[in-house]
């Protein structure tokens, strides 16, 4: 089943536009040189109100932890249960993390610590989301 469809807002639109082009861009604070995801109005580290730009990053990461959703509350995802939900850290900055259902990895068979790379899935016509696949 398709996943929930993210609704972009003025702050997040550049991110989702890039995802729809199969690119991963994160906010980058030019004041403290830190990456930030999800996007925020200000830098969450140095609180700089200006200087946040968008920077393309390499989609490489590692699996830090995971659970298996067997009885979740999201109606649209119920037919998929059970499914993996992993926390993936970005290699470029492990303080940045993403969720992933790890397409291609069977439920309960998640290799914690394994390397992953970004991929993109369609959730609606002309709307992709970013996902992560275990590197073979």
């Amino acid at each position, binding site marked *: 089943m398709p*996943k*929930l*469809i*993210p*609704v*972009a*807002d003025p702050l*997040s639109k550049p991110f989702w536009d890039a995802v729809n082009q199969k690119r991963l861009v994160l906010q980058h604070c030019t004041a403290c040189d830190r990456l*930030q*995801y*999800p996007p925020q109005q200000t830098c*969450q580290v140095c609180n700089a109100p200006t200087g946040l730009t968008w920077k393309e990053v390499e989609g490489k990461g590692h699996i*830090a*932890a*995971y*659970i*298996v*959703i*067997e*009885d*979740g*509350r*999201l*109606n*649209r*995802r119920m037919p998929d249960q*059970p*499914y993996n*939900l992993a*926390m993936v850290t970005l290699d470029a900055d492990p*303080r*940045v*993390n*993403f*969720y*992933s*259902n790890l397409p291609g990895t069977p439920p*309960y068979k998640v290799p*914690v610590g394994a390397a992953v790379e970004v991929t993109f899935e369609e*959730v609606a016509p002309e709307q992709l*989301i970013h996902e992560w696949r275990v590197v073979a």
Partner: protein
Amino acid sequence: MAASAGYQWRRDKDGLGVWEHRGKVAVAGFGHSPVDRRWDEVSMDKTLGAYSILACQKAMDEAGVTPDQVDGIICCDSHIAGGSGGTASQWAPRPYFAPPYDSELGLTLINGQWLAEQLGARNVKFAPTGVPTISEMVGMAAQAVGDGVCSTCLVIYPTGNLAGRYRRGGENADDYARGARQWVAPWGNHGGNDFINSFPHGQYCRKYGGKHDDLAPFVVNQHRNGLMTPWGYNASHNLPQLTIEEYLNSRYILNPLRLWDCDRPVNASTAYLFTTAERARDMKQPPVYVLNHSQHSFRKRSTQEDLDEIEEWTDRAAKRMYEGAGLGPSDVDVFNPYDGYSIMTQFFLEGFQWHGVKRGDSFAFYAGDIRVEGPHPLCSSGGNLGTGRLRTAMYTDSIEQLRGTAGPRQVKVRAETALAAFTTPSSGGWIMFGKHPN
């Protein structure tokens, strides 16, 4: 009726020193309504309004206070179950009843003004709106009484539940993920403390050793304590004692989070009466003094909180509370941290270092003697797991322990201080009670 716009009551920063009203504010009464699994949407004596009125009356009667003596009302005006509601329930609108039940107010929603009118509390001058949850409400009440904003303040925490599976409606039934949910819901996170704590819990097991099911003795003990809590759901509905085997055989919700790791949503209300220490000493019950209140709101770095953040936040919350109370870990006799999901309690236990528990020690601690009659009476209230999703058992038990009226749940160790919270590691608050003001 005055609102609270601009009233600075929070103690939500590091380094504030000892609370200026330490020992000068007290809880003089409390009241619990019956606890139902759900409101049946027809019984007018079992609405959240009816139950909140009842809880307030009990709290006032226990203290020996009349409604016209109440000059502050702090009431949480949330559905608690949230906009998501239940699948089969109609949270609003509905065919309404005659006044005062001609809107959702009094049925599934309560606020201070409605309550004051129903109680006949004509002299209320402090009735804030948009009030946060109980963890902060008790702090607001303590500060307001200490500051002289009001002198006799009711704090009411209603928690609602209707028919249908919990929170499967509303935004959880939406195909779209809007606002903050655009970053979590597409992948399955419906938002809540289950997700907040599950990943750090997994990291905890890998870092310190142990497995999820090492929580079994803690969960079973919560149920044991809950069966000794007569006003809670488990005891009042004669639930059987949960066994280790039943816990280990229970189905998964978010594997490894099991069914019995989760609290049971209920429909009930609780009320507390805060007043000055001086007034409390003339009231019917022994005063339970407030030694400090603190709040915290920590921001996660990215999508999902990790173990490092959870540990940092709970360390900071503990330091903030201890500093304000002028006490340390060895001074805390009764410890009632939140257990809405069993997987978060260990973070509080270790952060506050109760009975010397350090990071990574919790599973071994749970496997020891944590019974109320033993040397380490952890969560003597039974928490949410033992009494239902009241979120108030921690406070009431603390009060009862310090009064010496906890019955079979009365701890055998010294009971002169009690630390209680409904809170998450990221946001909420704590309160420290004392049998003595100093």
